[in-house]
């Protein structure tokens, strides 16, 4: 259990004040000692943000009050039949719908504006967080009020649908007679019938009154030419068939209606979800764009890297080739000599076979000589050998 010690606190404030006075200590706002001064509200400029937030809230509050005020009349679709006072016509209802919708739109726009403004101004992290939370609260509030409205509206739509259904049930017995007649007087009825139908839908309550005289005229028409029993039977059968058809059609329509209502509810849920997802999709989009850009950059980098790599390889290749060439050049003398030696050793061995074999030392000497001689010694060595 919490204990309120605010009074105790106030008392201790006073004690402290009197004590300070007694001690002659001048302390801040309490220096002049007047009570008003002490308990005055310190002048603090209200920040723009919070006053505007409050403004939006008061607007939403007005909308809520407005909706609640007219709720009863708005919902009550039978008001003009049942109650004498506070009646509201459909046009008035439509007006409310329109007003409420524009109001909601302006409110949400105002919130959006506040949001952008709050984000634009540079503040510390905490203030920013606080403000976005406040805006969330306001948005939530608006949503709740909107829900109030949409509930109200759903009830209204439902009532209207119910009413229509009722008014459809009413003329059913009439359709029977009308159907029987219509086959006979096709030429006359279609335009009238459609007219009637539209009338029935729009002003269901008027129909019973109107239909009376109509029946009278039909009765007259009926009296003009008699029908044979066969014809009557035929008509009756046709009648039955038509009724069955109508009934099945009607059932179907009713089913479809129910489904449509359900679908609309689903639609509402979906809309909500879609709206919720909008922000997420946006952020995902941003991310994807960022990612694409990154990938592009990455690709470019990779391409560059490949290029660099290729250049490097060319250089390496070049270097290797140069190395090998230089090796070749450095070594080429040796090679040629070796070649020449190979050239001349063969004949020299052949020469050995006929007695004048050269000793290894000599061949070495020949080799050494050939080396000294240089590149064009091949022929010379050969020449020496054959000697």
């Amino acid at each position, binding site marked *: *259990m919490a*204990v309120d*010690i*605010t009074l105790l606190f106030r008392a201790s404030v006073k004690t402290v004040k009197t004590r300070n006075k007694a001690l002659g200590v001048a302390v*801040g706002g309490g220096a002049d000692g007047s009570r008003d001064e002490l308990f005055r509200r310190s002048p603090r400029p209200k920040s723009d943000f919070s006053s505007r937030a409050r403004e939006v809230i008061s607007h939403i509050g007005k909308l809520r009050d407005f909706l609640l005020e007219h709720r009863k009349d708005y919902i009550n679709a039978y008001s003009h039949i049942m109650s004498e006072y506070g009646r509201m016509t459909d046009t008035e209802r439509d007006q409310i719908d329109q007003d409420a919708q524009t109001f909601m739109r302006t409110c949400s726009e105002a919130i959006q504006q506040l949001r952008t403004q709050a984000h634009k101004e540079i503040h510390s992290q905490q203030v920013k967080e606080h403000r976005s939370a*406040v805006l969330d609260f306001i948005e939530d509030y608006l949503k709740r009020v909107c829900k109030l409205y949409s509930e109200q509206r759903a009830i209204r739509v439902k009532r209207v649908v119910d009413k229509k259904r009722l008014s459809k049930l009413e003329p059913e017995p009439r359709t029977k007679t009308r159907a029987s007649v219509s086959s006979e007087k096709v030429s006359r009825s279609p335009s009238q019938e459609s007219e009637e139908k539209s009338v029935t839908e729009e002003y269901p309550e008027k129909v019973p009154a109107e239909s009376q005289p109509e029946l009278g005229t039909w009765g007259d028409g009926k009296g003009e030419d008699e029908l044979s029993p066969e014809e009557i039977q035929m008509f009756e059968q046709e009648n039955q068939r038509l009724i069955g058809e109508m009934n099945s059609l009607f059932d179907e329509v009713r089913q479809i209606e129910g489904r449509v209502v359900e679908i609309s509810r689903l639609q509402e849920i979906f809309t909500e979800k879609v709206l919720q997802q909008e922000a997420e999709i946006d952020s995902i989009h941003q991310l994807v764009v960022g990612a694409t850009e990154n990938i592009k950059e990455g690709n470019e980098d990779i391409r560059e890297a490949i290029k660099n790599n290729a250049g490097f390889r060319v250089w390496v290749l070049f270097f290797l080739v140069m190395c090998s060439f230089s090796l070749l050049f450095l070594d080429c003398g040796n090679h040629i000599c070796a070649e020449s030696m190979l050239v001349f050793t063969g004949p020299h061995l052949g020469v050995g076979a006929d007695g004048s074999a050269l000793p290894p030392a000599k061949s070495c000497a020949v080799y050494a000589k050939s080396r000294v001689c240089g590149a064009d010694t091949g022929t010379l060595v050969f020449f020496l050998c054959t000697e």
Partner: protein
Amino acid sequence: MVGVKMATAAAASIRERQTVALKRMLNFNVPHVKNSTGEPVWKVLIYDRFGQDIISPLLSVKELRDMGITLHLLLHSDRDPIPDVPAVYFVMPTEENIDRMCQDLRNQLYESYYLNFISAISRSKLEDIANAALAASAVTQVAKVFDQYLNFITLEDDMFVLCNQNKELVSYRAINRPDITDTEMETVMDTIVDSLFCFFVTLGAVPIIRCSRGTAAEMVAVKLDKKLRENLRDARNSLFTGDTLGAGQFSFQRPLLVLVDRNIDLATPLHHTWTYQALVHDVLDFHLNRVNLEESSGVENSPAGARPKRKNKKSYDLTPVDKFWQKHKGSPFPEVAESVQQELESYRAQEDEVKRLKSIMGLEGEDEGAISMLSDNTAKLTSAVSSLPELLEKKRLIDLHTNVATAVLEHIKARKLDVYFEYEEKIMSKTTLDKSLLDIISDPDAGTPEDKMRLFLIYYISAQQAPSEADLEQYKKALTDAGCNLNPLQYIKQWKAFAKMASAPASYGNTTTKPMGLLSRVMNTGSQFVMEGVKNLVLKQQNLPVTRILDNLMEMKSNPETDDYRYFDPKMLRGNDSSVPRNKNPFQEAIVFVVGGGNYIEYQNLVDYIKGKQGKHILYGCSELFNATQFIKQLSQLGQK
């Protein structure tokens, strides 16, 4: 009529009471009413560590948001000035907190200030704030000042601990230190009594106190009695009269407060356990209803798809909203594993249902003729859409428990906790052991050194006569070989010598667990938690010493163990020192408070005990909630000296 009243009184658990009190505080101390189209208000909440610990197990961030809290900040963090917003402070009245608050007043951080103190603030500190407010000419900005009397942390509907921040101050070690001075002891006792007093103020009832003689619990009882008495004497300012929530309902049925000292039962906190909540507390980092998982190592081959191994730290809140946790926190672990599996399967079935629906919807576009199917599907779609959030929530919970249970299971497997549990149960119930203690201690595969130490301590504590010196040396050697620190043993030795003088060691319940179907150890093969090698142990009901004491005192049974317990009734005008209770009726409500630290094992045992009794309620409280690791650490610190 009376029955109804009683029922409502019982329904408002301590948890609800504290939550209501907190919500009231956050709503500027006006009772909170839920209004769907109320205008939004916003405020910032400033708390210190104490306040944080109190709020965090009770209210989630989302709930705080619903209360209109835009920011919740620590008092001693860097806070930026936010003009035009009221600030709700929820802090302990300590020196440094007061200083900081004065500083806030001077700096004009917020528009108005609602000061709430966790426990009662002293007059001089109040004057300090008044002084600062005067100096800053911000007196009118201090809108409300309240003493909240909420200095305790509620963890469960029927469980609370005193504090978390300065728990070293009231720990087992602090109370049982040999070199403690009288003034230090006074501070410890005052801290405990202050929190207990807050608890009873929130509960709105004056208890009848029973405690054992010659222990720290007795000191607490005397002080608490005095404090309650002083408060009751001053009828005008009494906290227990007037508009206290449940004062009227409790006037004829007062709760019994049993103050128990930790020293009567040292084995239980060391015991290895087998129920879910206690296991989580024992082997994982479970703190203020939040469990921190280091990582889920090991191959996690979830059938739902190979999840990538996470190396990061994860924390889960185990809240009372979590139905599964609520149902299974007291169940033995194998049962929990099985239930997790079942939940997973049922969830998957539901998911399949939704998927099937999706495929039908996709198919529908092709054959238009099926009107009946369409209507059927619209209804189904509606139900699916409405059940989706529920399904997602369920999935989150299943994932949570899968991860937690997997982590626990890993520990069990790695440390052979099932073996320890079974063996310890046998030791405590003094049945014949099929394996010598030395074998387990010297087995390098079984458990950590700490587990071995725990096992040996339990053996040592519950042995009728202490093992001979030679045996003890042998054990000591084995323990040292296993890498144990022998400090705790030192302390337990002293304690045992002391306790032997005082009373015979309490005997533990003599029923034991029995391994169920040792041959069918392996759980159903499809299970994710293949419990191979882990015995499917079933807990049998047995009462721990604390539970037995409570039983005796609650039912007014005569028992040598509890007959000499002291009796305090703060409502009696003159205090008497007799241990003879005046009230001979059995109690309906009881609060067990363990001075020197409690654990989930005892809590679970009490819950199980009271389940069998109709219309009775037990609250379990402790000065500190520790698991065996922390307890061993304290013991070894005590043993060093």
